[in-house]
């Protein structure tokens, strides 16, 4: 393009070439300015922004939709499996630290960086994996129960959720002496608050007494009035210890309350002791007349980590193979009298099939 212009000016001769070149210069400058302005316009038009983040593959809270409180409640019972089903969680913190069970290290087996020995010998660090893990999972049940209350549950559903929350919070109080909590709808981002023993005992007492009249009885797999009574019993029985672990004193009125609640449960006629102690742990233990509140499992379809209760004590070469983990001490065994069912023995359907005994 440039070439043709020069040829033109050449043909016209030097004089005209002159002015042509001059005007070419000024039009060139004008072109540059136009080009420039266009660029500016284009770039600024595209660039300046409000800085609003667009979520693409995800969504924010507003779009969660209404959740079904009954489904959430069913899910809440399932979350209780975490801390309570299996010997790794709350069971471990209770039994291994109290000398009732022992987790010996054999060579590299069960060394696990000393985690189990530390529990048994009471030499844990403040970030001990099991202690931290159980604290977290118990609190997560407490949170899930509180969260359920924000989804407009009916009275029965709310009462059941509050029972579950009271249940785990009692164990948190028992294990750690203080309980963190949040109110329903409180953001999980900020700091939570903490109730110390006295406040927590009062809180649990109020909660249980409030839900007791509301709860209806739908079997041992769900919260029911007897379960609430049972938990109240436990609260009053342990109140002295929870308030002063070093030198507990137990109030006579609390003990009377324990007796009164026990009488209510016994007097209802809904429960009776089984002749076979192990009927409470059989595969069909939902028929047992002793169970007040239990965690439901359906073999093969919907079950928690129950098998580990067995496998932790059996050996790899037994059938089915076990984990060769925990055992107990002769002191514990000796506390059970001669002839006590719990000392163990054969069990039909188990010993004749796999050769494994029941009990100790």
């Amino acid at each position, binding site marked *: 393009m440039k070439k043709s212009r*020069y040829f033109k*000016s*050449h043909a016209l001769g*030097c*004089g005209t*070439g*002159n002015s042509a*070149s001059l005007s070419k210069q000024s039009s*060139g400058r004008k072109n*540059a300015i136009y080009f*420039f302005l266009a*660029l*500016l316009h284009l*770039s*600024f038009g595209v*660039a300046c*922004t409000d*800085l*609003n*983040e*667009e*979520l*693409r*593959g*995800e*969504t*924010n809270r507003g*779009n*969660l*939709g209404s959740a079904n409180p009954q489904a959430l409640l069913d899910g809440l019972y399932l979350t209780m499996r975490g801390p309570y089903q299996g010997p790794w969680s709350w069971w471990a913190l209770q039994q291994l630290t109290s000398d009732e069970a022992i987790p010996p*290290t*054999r*060579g*590299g087996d069960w*060394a*696990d*960086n*000393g985690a189990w020995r530390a529990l048994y*010998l009471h*030499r*844990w660090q403040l*970030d001990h*994996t099991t202690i931290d893990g159980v*604290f*977290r*999972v118990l*609190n*997560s*049940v*407490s*949170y*899930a129960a*509180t969260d359920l209350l924000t989804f407009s549950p009916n009275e029965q559903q709310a009462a059941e959720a509050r029972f579950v929350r009271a249940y785990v919070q009692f164990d948190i109080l028992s294990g750690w002496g203080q309980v*963190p*909590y*949040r109110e329903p709808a409180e953001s*999980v*981002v900020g*700091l*939570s608050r903490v109730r110390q023993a006295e406040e927590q005992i009062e809180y649990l007492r109020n909660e249980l007494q409030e839900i007791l009249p509301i709860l209806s009885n739908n079997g041992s797999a769900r919260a029911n009035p007897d379960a609430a009574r049972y938990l109240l019993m436990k609260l009053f029985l342990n109140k002295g210890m929870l308030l002063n672990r070093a030198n507990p004193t137990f109030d006579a009125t609390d003990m009377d309350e324990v007796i009164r609640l026990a009488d209510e449960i016994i007097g209802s006629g809904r429960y009776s002791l089984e002749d076979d102690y192990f009927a409470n742990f059989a595969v069909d233990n939902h028929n047992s007349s002793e169970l007040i509140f239990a965690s439901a499992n359906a073999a093969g379809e919907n079950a928690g980590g129950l098998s580990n209760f067995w496998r932790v004590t059996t050996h790899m070469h037994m059938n089915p193979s076990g984990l060769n983990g925990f055992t107990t001490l002769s002191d514990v065994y000796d506390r059970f009298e001669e002839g006590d069912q719990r000392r163990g023995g054969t069990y039909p359907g188990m010993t004749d099939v796999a050769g494994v005994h029941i009990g100790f």
Partner: protein
Amino acid sequence: MLQFHRIFSRLFCFCLLSIFSQSNLCAQALLGGSVKDNVGKALVGTSVSVVELKLATSADKDGNFSFTNVPAGRYTLQAKLLGYITQEKIVVVGSAPKTEHFVLNPNDEQLEEVVVMGYASVKKSDLTGAVSKVSAEDFNKGPITSPDQLIQGKASGVQMINNSGQPGGGSTVKIRGTSAVTGSGQPLYVVDGVALDGSNARPGAVGGELGTVPPSNPLAFINPNDIESMEVLKDASATAIYGSRAAYGVVLITTKRGKSGALRIDATLTGGVSSIMRKVDVLDGDQYREMLARYGLSLGDYGDNVDALDAILRDGFNTQSDVAFSGGSEDARFRASVGYQNQDGIVKTSNFEKFNGAFNGNFKMLESKKLGVDMGLVVNQVKERLAPITTNAGFYGSLIGQALSWNPTRSLYNPDGTLFIEQGSFMVNPLGMLGAYNDQSTVTNILGNFSPYYKVNDWLEYRMLGSIKYANGNRRTSTRSWINMLGIEGNANTRGGAASVGANEFTTTQMTHTLNFNKEIWDGLNLNAVAGYEYMRFENRGTFMSGREYGDIDVDYTDALQAGSQGSRSISSFNNPSSELQSYFFRAIFNYRSRYLLTGTIRRDGSTKFGVNNKYGNFPSFSAAWNIKEEAFLKNVSFLSDLKLRAGWGKTGNQEFPSGAAVDRYGYGLNGVLTSLNNGNPDLKWQSDEQTNIGVDFGLFNSRLTGTIDLFSKQTTDLLYPRVPYYPNSPGTAIVWTNLEGVIQNRGVELALQGKLIQTDEISWNIGGNLTLLRNRVRDLEGSYNTGLLNGQGLSNTTIEVVRSGLPMFAMFTRDYLGLDANGFSEYADEGYTYYYVGNPNPKALVGFSTDISYKGFSLVANFNGTLGNDIYNETENAVLAIGNLGTRNISRSYYDSGQMESFANPIAPSSRYIEDGSYIKLANATLSYRVGDLGANIKNLNVFVTGTNLLLFTKYSGFDAEINVEKSVGGLPSAGIDYIAYPSSRTFNLGIGFSL
């Protein structure tokens, strides 16, 4: 192009004749000559111009230039070349040809050297901040795959280590210490003004028991051969102009541009071989049998004598070819280059292949040359074949662990020659692992930038830069069902096998407008200012499919992904929240008679990632410098050629957290179930960094000895961390990104020295070195954060590093090992129930040293680098080679060599026993080259060279290499100084030639 230029100049002068002709109408002559330097070398590319006629040309390869048909007259002929003092001569052109010869003197004053700063170039003498510049001739040599390897050991204050020996593998670059509680801690890389986001588009793969293969270097898409220089901006006054991304330092990469003049073609071809640099000592067959006897073990001897590590290694060949074309005129310069690199890793089947093409042009338009365009395009594809070497393998290990722990008395093959694979066993045949694992990744990067500018006048220039970087990554991984790997092995219950295919698309767009002002505003006072606006946008999305239970079908699983079981199929995709950055910045450099300098910068950054309450941040900095050498009282001190005192302070930030971190986010799972992914934090903001720097630049004996000393102190606050919400929280609760209260302090001293020891016509000897002393501490942080997650038998869920007040970052915090007791069991302080601070992975000192000797045509360059005072946790020794393996797997040779009989039942546990001194000095690369010179008529500057890398390693550490960093992060918190069965480092020897046409 030369033709056009001739026509142009001829016609131009014809038109101007009527104005300027003094003598006979259209009398013209030839004006020519040559430009040489003071030793007679031709100065190619010198810009020679006839000032009054606005004629310009370049000196060709012989230094000759010519103007034809110059009208008679008296003109000023000017010769100008960067690095030389410009000369002008008055010439009178008559009707006869006229010749002028220029002898240009080199401009020795380093002060005139130009350093690229953020958004502009500044004269080195005007610098008030701490900047280290490394030019192409000082780069590390060898089969380099990414730019950060070029400056390893070359800049003070910069710790650069390759994470492992993986070809094209990632690296850890820390500038002035560690201050990243989350994220990579890597500096911001800017290539020709385009800021990179540091992401690698390679998708993930299905991991399982094998673990995760570490990522490769995100900078691998840049061809190191195309790089002209790299500037490392270290202190806040230099980096603050990059605001909320600059806290870890900034590395500016400037690519080679075309040089005006004759078309020049530069080619380099090199090929070589790499082998393992150093092995980890395990037992051979006979030693194993002896150990079995010592311990009275009857099982475990299979009669053979096998070196499994040898079996998986090979001598890997590498080749690299680069050709670059450059040329053009003063107003239209271009450079085009193509490159190909292929590296076979020393581990069989692993390979790194790279295709590169780049083009850039610098064009000036209009007669006034005021309008210009710089443009560039880089197209790159990296293809990797990855070996099954991971960072977090469990009990079954990954390849290197399987090879080290293979029973040396057991053959890897069956008697019939097939591979010995033991079904149901936890001992995996390493050759089997190699054969069963197929992992290929292809990452394509296209980076284009277009930058028009307009010089309004001598002192004002407007420039716009628009760029797009598009990265596309594809990865296909499969593990065959016949390998006895947990979760993969086919048996009676499952067909076995696993495969995955992933694809990612990452797009980064940038738009920057700058206005540059450079003028003397008062008598002796010069102001060099730049004001600008920048907008960046990041978009990442991808898809992932995986399946299991393929069985032993005839084809590769990834070619028939549908052949697995329906129930095991998994598909997912993601589209990250959009991320935008909008910034305004301003910098002013006041220069009074080159003696007193004052720089101030301010940047206001806004990001979509920050919470609503903190959308914008301001990042100011100030620095001043005093060129003491320019003062009257020092002017006559002859031995001092340069003395400058600098001081600076500034604030920068870091925003390396994922987009969407400040808001509540829920993601969709199977059947539309929403799960909480992130808890929002409206106060989320950048991590703040405040740095003070005092430095001295000096030059002695006519710049024969130059150096820099810098003292710095960095405080990092508002520590970004993905905190788990306090209890009670929901089961599987999502994290909440928080700025933690706490301070990370990094303090240190940097020394850099360059010396031109001998400089004669025949011999020259230059040395350079740098030393950095560092100290790192965490302060005022509540709580303790664990990281450094170990894997392997007996080590699951154990962490050995902490971030805690009073200790350095990633302090090794575990049992204190006291030795073996009489029964051969480990003894620990407090019986191992209390943990102590027993190791520090942060180096106390970084060292780099290089020497460059040339004699006649020969030249020898050697580069050393190292770190001192850092500890390494040898997890390989801890997890994979413990004494308890005896009878089933191999053990470390230290048990054989030791006098003590460690108990066979001594449990595996982490402790200070495995913390070793990781200090090292390495001869990282050395090159011997011979300059043949010109060969025949066409080949110019032929030189032949031999290069070796990883030649010598001086260290007490017993692993494959002391230069190691395996990622063992926990919940987003990175780790440091842990070695776990990583890809071993290799030693290479390369032969190559380079020449120009």
